């Protein structure tokens, strides 16, 4: 039976249709045994769902991914650059420029509030994170110090007309915690509040980082140097 729309209006599933995801997982051998048995029972009785499974069995040409050659090791690139003669011309100028930059723009680690800016997977502009502190009923936008009794909300600004996945990470040194529960993607805009509130505690400065991505964020892969992070540093009050 063909299950395309048009000639299938007369055919209805005998009960709750088996989802395409379940059918695909059945074919991939990824359904747990109990679910597999239930699906197979349904398919034996329902010609519409069985025909959907047949659709999955049809061969499908998978186009090759565009080639993404791995970059050569750094030392090889450096050797090629040096042997091309660039170093003799540019090395003195480069060293001077680096020294000048270091003197003019020294790292101001814990006084900087913004580290990130744009995020991989989210095209089209900047991303900003601002924190709102509620302390004894008083609301403070852009607060940078915390005490255990404070409640915090995070506001996100990202390019409009995008819907993105998000997560909020608090780094205490290299240790990461996730103070907000995972939720659905957000629609970008100006100062979009992330759902939920959180508390911060501890005796060390904390880095509160926003992650935005076009795809769901896997917490197990989040690191302190995640390129997608836009961070704010907050300090404990003494």
């Amino acid at each position, binding site marked *: 039976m063909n299950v*395309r729309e048009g000639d299938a209006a007369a055919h209805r599933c005998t009960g709750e*249709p088996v*989802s395409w995801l379940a059918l695909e997982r059945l074919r991939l051998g990824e359904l747990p045994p109990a679910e597999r048995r239930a699906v197979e029972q349904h398919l034996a009785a329902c010609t519409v769902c069985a025909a959907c499974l047949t659709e999955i069995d049809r061969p499908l040409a998978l186009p090759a*991914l565009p080639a993404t050659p791995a970059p050569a090791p750094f030392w090889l690139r450096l050797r090629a650059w040096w042997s091309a003669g660039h170093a003799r011309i540019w090395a003195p100028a480069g060293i001077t420029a680096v020294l000048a930059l270091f003197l003019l723009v020294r790292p101001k680690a814990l006084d900087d509030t913004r580290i990130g800016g744009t995020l991989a997977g989210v095209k089209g502009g900047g991303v900003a994170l601002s924190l709102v502190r509620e302390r004894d009923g008083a609301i403070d936008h852009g607060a940078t110090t915390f005490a255990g009794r404070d409640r915090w909300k995070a506001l996100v600004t990202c390019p409009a007309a995008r819907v993105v996945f998000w997560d909020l990470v608090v780094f205490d040194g290299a240790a990461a915690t996730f103070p907000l529960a995972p939720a*659905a*993607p957000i629609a970008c805009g100006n100062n979009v509040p992330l759902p939920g509130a959180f508390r911060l505690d501890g005796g060390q400065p904390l880095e509160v980082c926003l992650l935005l991505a*076009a795809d769901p964020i896997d917490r197990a892969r989040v690191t302190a140097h995640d390129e997608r992070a836009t961070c704010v540093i907050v300090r404990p009050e003494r």
Partner: protein
Amino acid sequence: MDAYARYGPTLLRKARRMLGNSADAEDVVQSLFVDLFGRGHRSADLPYLFRAVTTRCLNHVRDRGNRARLLERQDPALRAVARTRCDDEVIGVDLLTKLVDRLDAHCAEVLVYRYFDDLTQDEIAEMQAVSRKTVGVRLARVRVAVQALIDARAATEGAP
């Protein structure tokens, strides 16, 4: 076998159902894997990828620059039988393009899972990490939005 070889066909079928044409579906699926591999993620599980493709397809539909092309290129053969309908209404690409403007991100995702992928409410709840009740509330909002579109269409067709 890497994630693209294993799950690529599944995701391509899913993107075709949603977008109604092969070229856009291939673009979406390929860009997902290029981004993932570019970030060093060689492996991912199917539910993660399924959700990622859903969001990317929705963003593709939200982009007004793509809409005319999507409607023009629709291949009815790629839209599988609508086993799950919204009050007897089949949700296709044309309705989807209108509904994404009326629904928030959560509800738009639920709409796709329910009416394009035939996911049960329990499966949607697991996918979105929310309760079944929340899924029910979102589905109710989807129904209201669909009904409003149908009413508007009927009023237009009935107008002299």
